[in-house]
């Protein structure tokens, strides 16, 4: 039997904001819609930016991609601030419990010594790759046109900083401050890491918002994350040493799957709009994936040893599959 509660229902004058109604019709809107669509000002800007006098403060011209409406790049996860932070807080809670579990039982000490060493060698320099990813997504957040894209890039940049901090925590748990120092030294001077560092530094001077999106969020992360967290952590390392490291990096594994949905949706919508967009995105994806793959060869050897080539081939194939679904040509 249902308890039939009565409330006083007043007749509202309207269901939502005018700009939302123009897009979706006269009905109650979702929180994501009200928080996202047309939030960015669009008209009658007063002053040209001193940091880019040839364009306006908000300008579609900060990329070669052309869209009639930048809000086609909506986020399939429908993250606005509230849902983003609450989703991440749930993940954070689970990870916190994992770290506690491991540390209380001293499980980091019963790890296979060889795997532990490889893990530190692989993961510590990735702290810096994550910082580069944070910087790049920040760039996109700052200069992307339209709140749909800018907002999601803000969350991505935060995620990357969070990843860098989880890696730092892992380093302190499995090793200590010296492990972090060694990782930074490798990043700065070891031959194996220079191609990747060179790649990252090249992204740091890439100023086309959508090209950078492709380079960082599709090409690099699309290869790096499955390579490290699927092939190595949950693959080869887990076989030898159990799930301990995977528990510490579960955020990264889960995050990659979730984020790929967003990345692919953005690229799919952009590519679908015009053959010019599709050609540009294909060109960028191919060029940057080629560079990323080459840069990851020595890294994959550190992480996976003899399994490196096969693993890199697997993740490259998976990226190809994504490209097909997105509707771009990926040759690398």
């Amino acid at each position, binding site marked *: 039997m249902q308890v039939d509660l009565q*409330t*006083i229902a*007043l007749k*509202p*004058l309207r269901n*939502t*904001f*005018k*700009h939302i109604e123009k897009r979706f019709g006269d009905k109650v809107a979702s929180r994501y819609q*009200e*928080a996202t669509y*047309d*939030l*960015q*000002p*669009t*008209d*009658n*800007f*007063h*002053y*040209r*930016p*001193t*940091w880019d006098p040839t364009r306006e*403060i*908000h300008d579609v011209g900060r990329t070669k991609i052309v869209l009639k409406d930048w809000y086609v790049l909506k986020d399939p996860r429908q993250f606005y*601030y509230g849902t983003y932070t*609450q989703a*991440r*807080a749930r*993940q*954070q*809670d689970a*990870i*916190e419990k994992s770290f506690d579990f491991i540390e209380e039982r001293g499980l980091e*000490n019963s790890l296979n010594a060889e795997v532990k060493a490889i893990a530190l060698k692989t993961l510590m320099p990735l702290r*810096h790759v994550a*910082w580069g990813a944070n*910087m790049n997504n920040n760039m996109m*957040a*700052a200069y992307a046109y339209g*709140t749909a894209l*800018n907002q999601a890039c*803000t969350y991505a*940049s*935060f995620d990357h*900083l*969070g990843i860098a*901090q*989880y890696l730092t925590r892992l380093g*302190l748990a499995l090793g*200590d*401050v010296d492990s*972090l120092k060694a990782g930074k030294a490798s990043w*700065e001077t070891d031959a194996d890491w220079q191609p990747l560092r*060179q790649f990252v*530094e*090249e992204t*740091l001077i890439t100023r086309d918002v959508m090209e950078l999106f492709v380079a960082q969020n599709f090409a690099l992360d699309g290869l790096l994350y499955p390579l490290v967290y699927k092939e190595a952590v949950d693959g080869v390392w887990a076989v030898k040493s159990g799930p301990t490291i995977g528990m510490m990096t579960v955020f990264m594994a889960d995050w990659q799957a979730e984020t790929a949905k967003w990345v692919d949706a953005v690229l799919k919508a952009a590519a679908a709009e015009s053959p010019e967009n599709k050609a540009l995105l294909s060109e960028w994806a191919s060029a940057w994936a080629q560079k990323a793959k080459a840069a990851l060869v020595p890294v994959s050897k550190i992480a996976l040893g003899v399994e490196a080539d096969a693993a890199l081939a697997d993740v490259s194939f998976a990226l190809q599959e994504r490209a097909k679904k997105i509707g771009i040509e990926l040759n690398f």
Partner: protein
Amino acid sequence: MDMNVKKKLGLKERYHLMTRDLAWDATYQKEEEIYPQLAYEGIKIHDWDKWEDPFRLTVDAYWKYQAEKERKLYAIIDAFAQNNGHLTVTDARYVNALKLWLNGITPLEYEAHKGYARLGREFKGVGASVACQMQSIDELRHAQTQIHAMSNYNRFYNGLDDWHHKADRMWYYSVPKSFFEDALSAGPFEFITAISFSFEYVLTNLLFVPFVSGAAYNGDMAAMTFGFSAQSDESRHMTLGLEVIKFMLEQDPQNVPIVQGWIDKWCWRGVRLLTLVGMMQDYMLPKRVMSWKEAWEIYFEGNGMALFNDLARYGIKVPECVEQVRKEKEHITHQAWLTFNSANFLTNFHTWIPSKEELDWLDAKYPDTFPKYYRPRFEYFQKLEDEGKPFFTAGLPRVCQLCQIPVFYTEPDDPTQLAYEEGTYMGEKFQFCSTFCHKIFDNEPEKFVQSWIPPHQIFQGNCFPEGTNPTVEGFDPIRNVAAYYDIEWGRENGPFVGSEDQKNFAKWRDQTTKN
């Protein structure tokens, strides 16, 4: 089994590992290409590592604490909507304060989000970058939670539904819009001085207290809860403002005059912008919190001045404008409300003449000026209204080139004399409200000649709907400007008395209280 004895890390060291240790010195690309905005303002930073983190929040802690606040906030927003919470406000005039907020302030929260995102990327020091990134995402939070908190009001009251279109076009929203676009178009060091220091530290209580306390005093649970939920965000922002100013001043003595110039500019610009907020707190809150004059005395003349005492050791001086602001605090809110009340055919919020009790309150709060200069005006206009001949301004005003406020300001020492300040640049004349706005213009004329000034745009014919022919017989410029603004004529404009808002509120109150 060997138990490694690990070095116990202090909080500061641990946070450094979590933040500034993540960066490295690039060698494959030039630093100035990775950070192209750091040199052109003339600010010298020799050692970003001297930055002291104003707060230490790792991302996972941020997620946890903020999510907790979001859960609580949205539970209240949901309950508010379900229970017709809007009917608990003191009276429906209050909703007009929310219209000013959603149209005038909320877009600025988004622009702050963008501005800090830029700084997060363009600042080299990781400490500074991370603090800016946190502020960036906080400001996005504020924009979105404000929209959500006010969403229910939009369903029942007019003037809240079209902020995207209105904020970019209407004659008074150009005041906050131009303010923030001035900051956004500036370099990173000016932006952070303008917003983190002048706005978020020096002047923050003068924006926050009126709106949020106003909500609390007037039974607006939604906006009040937003405000309390945002308080700890604002604390972080204040600490960032203080740190950044000290950091710049300590990095190089030659930064001092540049920073001083920005402090002078942005304190003035901030105070001018706050005219509208002061007006709101003196006139638009049925249950008033405190007068603008009182707020200024507490938050600036008290707290703010203490801050400048702190900064004196760097050679920073109190902005010269404070003396004029001190005199003006007796006048500007009354002058502003009189302005809007005579122009409410072209606003998307309602106005009204204060009741006798409200006039008495204003007499008491402004004993030196209100009884003499302003009460007689309101009583005169009330008389005309009672006779069915309300007074309206029959034309467009002279507006300040810099702050874009119609010049209703009077000479600081003569409240019977409008302020007339003008200047020339490249053979063209420009009008101002004050020597301070004039000076800001003179320092950056190439910027401020670009101002999109609403009355001038109207006179250029740029504020009519597309395809309008202004030369036809019987052309009504006001109705056509209203059409460009997309004003729902007779519904969202005009006086409160007789408005749909007023009628509906009374009807709904009855519906929920009478049988």
